[in-house]
């Protein structure tokens, strides 16, 4: 490395109880460098960056910025040294304007007047220089997710950050927004700033970074110049073994399981689903692709029994209705994977066995005369843990302690264990790492092979292309006509996701 180092971490170790989150990690960042920190969930990426920024204090090791030792545990010192951090979950106040959010904390409380005008000028200069367009007087609550991230970056730049750390910056962005973000980051490094971004997505690491540091199990396992490596090598380094995503094989679909005809759902007078129609057959996966916030949540709730149609009809196995109930669906053999596993899929404070049986607790195998058959429930949870390879779990483990991937396996498991005839999978792999994604894909394909109809709602184009037999795009609450996956090409689907499809949506 010939670049002058702006940031050096040496021998950082951090333990949480018995868990060694960071095991003597050393890292350096050169001026003008775009460094990717690649690793699966739980590899210690976020912990390392939180130590660097002073949110955590390391057990051993030290951090130097521009040659100066940073005092541990002091975010303010990190900010003053020119380090800016953009968290995965934004730290903005929705009820304040963009400018207020950016200025907050930069002025002493004792001042009677604020330098708003100067601040606005500085903000404008910054946003023009780096192409981060945003209206300084808009309220943050009115901004899209992509815009909010721009505000976060501007906030760091406003404080004269020369090193920018981004934690999973693309997790919430659409593909177009992500491309724009990396464009901006490249501009920044070209003008002398240095950037570290944390990611577990190989595509963006390959596309954007100069150099990759790969973390696994709290250690640095490798370091590569991006130009001299490839996706396969990075994947293997990150996971520690070769991961192959399962591949779909052709099969003939069976009878109609779930259909929707001209279904609309209203929310406060607005159509959140607008005369949509679809059909999922037995042994078929229908992929609904779309950019976040185009009605996927409503579609998920409608098909999971939490919302009813205001007009139009749903039909499940020939039985017509306006809406289902969770009970009815579970009894009829529907597996439901909710959009957000933490808020909808499981009660974090309850044990795994409780979450495993919660939606079927009234079945006679799990309860009788109003009393829970605790032994039977625990055995069932044990079976799920065994069969679906839920790591680090016993039936009595608190569900919150599971990693995202293992929690998702529990949710999948409790649905698949009773061989469903229909699966509603809403963003089934969001936030999961490579290994877990492969496992989830494998299970869904296995269920399809066994004759289940699968409605897959996803924002991940690769996922939809890999799994689906048929694809429909969702845009502003409307669904495009169904396109057989065999005839689908990325570009056409990209246009469909922007709402451009021929004719009106056919049922």
């Amino acid at each position, binding site marked *: 490395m010939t670049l002058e180092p702006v940031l050096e971490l040496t021998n950082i170790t951090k333990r*949480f*109880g018995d868990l060694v989150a960071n095991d003597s990690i050393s890292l350096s960042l050169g001026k003008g460098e775009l460094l990717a920190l690649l690793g699966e969930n739980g590899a210690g990426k976020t912990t390392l960056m939180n130590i660097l920024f002073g949110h*955590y*204090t390391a057990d051993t090791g030290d951090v130097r910025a521009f040659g100066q030792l940073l005092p541990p*545990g002091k975010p303010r010192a990190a900010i003053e040294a020119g380090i800016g951090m953009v968290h995965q979950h934004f730290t903005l106040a929705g009820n304040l304007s963009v400018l207020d959010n950016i200025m907050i904390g930069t002025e002493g409380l004792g001042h009677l007047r604020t330098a708003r005008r100067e601040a606005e000028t500085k903000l404008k200069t910054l946003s023009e220089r780096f192409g981060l367009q945003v209206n300084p007087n808009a309220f943050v609550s009115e901004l899209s997710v992509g815009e909010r991230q721009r505000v976060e970056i501007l906030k760091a730049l406003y404080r004269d950050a020369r090193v920018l750390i981004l934690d999973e910056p693309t997790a919430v962005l659409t593909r177009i927004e992500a491309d724009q973000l990396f464009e901006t980051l490249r501009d920044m490094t070209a003008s002398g700033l240095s950037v570290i971004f944390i990611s577990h997505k190989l595509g963006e690491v390959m596309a954007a970074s100069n150099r990759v540091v790969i973390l696994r199990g709290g250690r640095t396992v490798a370091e590569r110049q991006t130009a001299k490596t490839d996706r396969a090598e990075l994947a293997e380094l990150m996971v520690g073994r070769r991961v192959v995503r399962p591949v779909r094989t052709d099969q003939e679909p069976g009878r109609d399981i779930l259909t929707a005809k001209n279904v609309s759902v209203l929310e406060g007078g607005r159509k959140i689903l607008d005369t949509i129609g679809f059909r999922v057959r037995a042994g078929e996966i229908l992929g609904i692709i779309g950019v976040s916030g185009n009605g996927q949540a409503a579609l998920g709730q409608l098909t*999971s*029994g*939490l919302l009813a149609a205001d007009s139009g009809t749903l039909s499940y196995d020939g039985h017509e209705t306006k809406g289902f*109930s*969770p*009970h009815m669906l*579970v009894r009829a053999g529907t597996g*439901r994977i*909710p959009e957000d596993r933490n*808020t*909808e*899929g*499981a*009660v*974090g*404070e*309850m044990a795994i066995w*409780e979450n495993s049986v*919660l*939606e079927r*607790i*009234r079945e006679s195998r799990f*309860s009788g005369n*109003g*009393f*829970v058959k*605790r032994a039977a429930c625990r055995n069932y949870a044990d079976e799920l843990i065994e069969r679906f390879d839920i790591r680090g779990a016993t039936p009595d483990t*608190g569900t919150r*302690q599971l990693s995202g991937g293992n929690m998702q396996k529990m949710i999948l498991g409790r649905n698949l264990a009773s061989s469903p005839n229909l699966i509603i999978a809403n963003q089934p792999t969001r936030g999961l790492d490579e290994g877990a994604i492969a496992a989830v894909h494998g299970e869904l394909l296995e269920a399809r092979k066994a004759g289940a109809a699968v409605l897959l709602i996803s924002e991940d184009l690769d996922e939809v292309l890999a799994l689906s037999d048929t694809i429909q795009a969702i845009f502003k609450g409307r669904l495009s006509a169904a396109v057989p996956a065999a005839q689908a090409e990325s570009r056409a689907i990209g246009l469909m996701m922007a709402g451009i499809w021929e004719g009106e949506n056919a049922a």
Partner: protein
Amino acid sequence: MRLERRDNTPLVLMIAAPVVAVVIALALSGVLIALAGVNPLDAYYEMVKGAFGSRLSISETLTRTTPLILTGLAAAVAFRARLWNIGGEGQLYLGALVAAWLGHSLASVVPGPLAIVIILLAGMVAGALLLLGPVILRIRLGVDEVVTTLILNFIVLLFVSMMIEGPLKDPLAFGWPQSVPVDREVLLPKLLERSRLHIGLLVAIFAAVVVWVVQSRTVFGMETKAAGLNPKAASFAGIKLGKTLLAVACISGGLAGLAGAIEVTGLKGYVTLDLSPGYGYSGIVVAMLAGLNPIGVVITAVFVAIVFVGADSMSRALGVPSFIADVIVSISLLTMLVCLLFTSYRVRR
């Protein structure tokens, strides 16, 4: 120094937390006692003697414990389902008033034991109905039940006042605002001869066991737990939140109403406006100190009763104002909340 979330709480810590909390609270209150010019150790000695020193004082402490267990359970059941029932006091008074009215008129119609059962059940129904209003308002219109249940306490007190000055006034009470007395037939049997302790204590302990079994062993208990901890996940799993909340409201209000009915039929025999020295509110403290655990409620109710009964005799013996009891209980709540923090978080350098 910073706090980190614990993955799981060691059992030792869960038991130690309330004990440490109480010790710290006693130490802090000791400062106030010292300021009043008395050696805190002497004061606490008098307190313990006052609460345990004789057969009489033990029976008095347990008599005080009875309504505290019931109002404590009422709060614990509700809070676990994230239903913030602050109206225990009002529910208690309404239960008491109904018990006095029925106790006065029912004994001549039905035999004693049956009448007692009817009276206690009626007290529960009264308490439950009083809580249903605020809960329905919350489910339908999103009205904050903290406000509505709290305000209802004052309304109920005024209503009780109106009734015992009017239709239910005892004509033989020399003009005191006092309700008609319940018939001797429907007074609860004594648990201990020559004392005020009555079988209401057993009813309260039985209620605690039933609540524990329901919460930890039944489908209903599991569903209310899920609904309280994570309403979104619960409704995804098909649990009907409104129905669950209504059921919890019936149980919670019913327990507080039962406390009132038992005070009337077991102890006082009639309703006055000083029937309860804030049992409804103390119940909240009891429940919090117990970490919302129904069996823990029984233990913390005894503790709070000791403090109240003991403080009275301490005050008589040493001249320290008996308000110190309120201070001790309040500080215990605060220290308990702090100690609970350390059961779910650890401190790191």
